[in-house]
């Protein structure tokens, strides 16, 4: 397959995606390229599966829409074009004492992409999703109209566009409310836990006093150690940083794609045991800069290459209620018994702050995220996980999905038909056609 300019981060599915660039926010929408019949905005290609792809259609490349419009250093209100990267926002606002109200695990996503996937972060239990902090956005529709949507104005279109996967039109600019900080550092405690029971207890103890909580778990450990890991809890702190220089990007990169996946039973087992045992003490505290704290994987450029030419599949689900905890245990046993999984398996408790987005993914419960090297066996495993997620009324994150069935999607997002009414008639995506049963 020829290397396309437009890929998704998981490198699966791989399609020859064509795109057209939009240079200025005042420009009209481009026509789909010859032989294609629909449009889809494309940001920085960091969603894992096919929400950012449009097979047989055209993507609108928004890289050039990376201009700031206004920033009030007194109130922390920022307005910028949709193609601005979160890394660029941080470079601007951190020296002025402001931070993103919600941040995903990479800073190399556009604000438009973050909004379209209604991203969440380690502070979901307190802060909700990014969509909760969007004050206004402008939507350019294929009929040529421009609609400013806010929580008070054009509210339905606003709710459809937050988490709307780019399908409601092209977002040209976004206005968000930032969060005040005293400096670029965080005070982080890392606590070792022996099993799932302890994870849930630590979460309950920590979620009130700590703005950021997340856990890494050893996905290979079985039996009494099932779900052992390291619990991280942190708050912003006012300490001064010795090295808050400019953002120089990744320090090392994966220079090329190996001919096969480097993630296998052996490397997984070794890494997970090493990582769990690296921390000797039960609890340790450190002061850490926001970049390694929020974006550990951004330090390694092109890390997705380690999964080889077939790419990887991400899976993130949320499981609500008491039943969700039992199901999580079943899922982890299934994953551990096959020796599948990844280096970075993450657990977190979502809070109950509701997002305005109709298709928003987070909801109260426990969320599990991990990735797998692409193989036929993994597809079967993920189908089993989907069945378990459906059973407890949970959901799977579209931003990370490349394979869920239409049946699963429609059970996870019962308001999908209501949402469909807001889709721009000229817009579509590979993901949307798949999960609505219109395969193309």
């Amino acid at each position, binding site marked *: 397959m020829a290397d396309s300019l437009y890929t998704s981060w998981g490198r699966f599915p791989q399609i020859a995606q064509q795109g057209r*660039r939009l240079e200025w926010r*005042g420009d009209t929408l481009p026509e789909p390229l010859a032989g294609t019949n629909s449009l889809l905005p494309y940001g920085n290609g960091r969603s894992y599966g096919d929400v950012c792809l449009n097979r047989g259609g055209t993507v609108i490349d928004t890289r050039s829409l990376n201009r700031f419009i*206004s*920033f009030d250093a007194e109130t922390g209100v920022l307005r910028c074009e949709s193609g601005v990267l979160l890394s660029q926002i941080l470079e*601007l606002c951190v020296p002025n004492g402001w931070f993103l109200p919600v941040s995903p695990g990479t800073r190399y996503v556009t604000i438009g992409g973050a909004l379209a996937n209604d991203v969440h972060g380690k502070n979901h239990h307190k802060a909700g999703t990014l969509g909760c902090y969007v004050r206004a956005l402008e939507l350019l529709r294929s009929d040529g109209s421009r609609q400013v949507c806010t929580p008070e104005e054009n509210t339905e279109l606003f709710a459809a566009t937050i988490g709307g996967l780019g399908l409601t039109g092209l977002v040209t600019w976004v206005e968000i409310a930032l969060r005040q900080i005293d400096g670029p550092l965080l005070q982080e405690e890392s606590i070792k836990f022996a099993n799932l029971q302890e994870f849930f207890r630590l979460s309950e103890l920590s979620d009130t006093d700590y703005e950021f909580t997340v856990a890494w778990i050893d996905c290979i450990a079985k039996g009494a150690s099932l779900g052992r890991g390291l619990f991280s809890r942190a708050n912003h702190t006012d300490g001064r940083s010795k090295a808050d220089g400019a953002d120089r990007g990744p320090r090392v990169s994966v220079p090329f794609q190996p001919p096969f996946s480097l993630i296998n039973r052996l490397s997984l087992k070794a890494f997970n045991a090493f990582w769990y045992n690296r921390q000797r003490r039960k609890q340790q505290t450190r002061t850490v800069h926001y970049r390694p704290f929020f974006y550990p994987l951004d330090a390694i450029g092109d890390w997705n290459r380690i999964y080889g030419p077939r790419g990887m599949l991400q899976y993130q689900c949320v499981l609500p209620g008491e039943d969700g905890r039992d199901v999580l245990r079943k899922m982890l046993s299934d994953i551990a018994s096959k020796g599948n999984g990844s280096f970075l398996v993450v657990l977190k408790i979502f809070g109950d702050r509701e997002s305005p987005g109709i298709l928003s993914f987070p909801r109260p419960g426990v969320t599990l995220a991990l990735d797998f090297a692409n193989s036929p066996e993994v597809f079967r495993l993920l189908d089993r996980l989907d069945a378990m997620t459906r059973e407890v009324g949970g959901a799977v994150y579209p931003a990370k999905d490349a394979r869920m069935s239409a049946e699963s999607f429609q059970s996870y997002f019962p308001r999908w038909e209501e949402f469909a009414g807001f889709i721009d008639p000229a817009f579509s995506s590979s993901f949307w056609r798949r999960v609505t049963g219109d395969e193309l």
Partner: protein
Amino acid sequence: MSQVLVIGAGSAIAEAAARIYAGRGDRLFLVARDAARLDIIADDLRVRGAEQVDVLAADLTDRDRHAEIIAAAIDAMPELDVVLVAYGVLPDQGSCQQNVEDALYSIDVNFLSVIAFLTPLVNQLEERAKGTVAVISSVAGDRGRQSNYVYGAAKSGLDVFLQGLRNRLDKSCVHVLTIKPGFVDTPMTAHIPERGLLWAQPEDIAAGIVTAIDKRRNVVYLPGFWALIMLIIRSIPEAIFKKLNL
């Protein structure tokens, strides 16, 4: 703090360079054809930290406006440290061969209008005995090739003009920089379908330009490997070169 005049500020390379100056807290004066786009860029540069940004919408092929542009820029920025000339068109070689008007238009934009603009401007700088004039030329000016020799001829003429200026102004402490970018991924080149290893991003070219201005370099190829490529291209004997398909 520097005072920077950018001519052709709507180009992707110029915009990226202006962002670097804005980040340093410099003062900018932007000239481009499209008033709405100028305002968009100016807002962005203010947010990025520029001390002051003024704009003027003008078409540089309209020589009657050159005096006005220079006067307005010096009025807004009396110290005028840097002038970056970044406008130009990449004509379609095929239509230049069929249509004399197309060929002459590209010579007018890329060569004549630049000379017309620089001539009165450098006289002012010479009088004040300070400042840097940085002009974006192209690797295409290093040797005529069948695929773009009309564009190349304009840039080649520009290179010689700048050499002369540099020689003349050296004693006045006015510095002249010739910038020769290779393939850059910008709207000007968006119609070229292939994108290979030789292609660079406008941000990288802009960083190279600002460094070259800071270091008072004379001629820079950007990215630097183009110096080697063009050395090889220039040293091929004409008897062989004329048979090549470049």
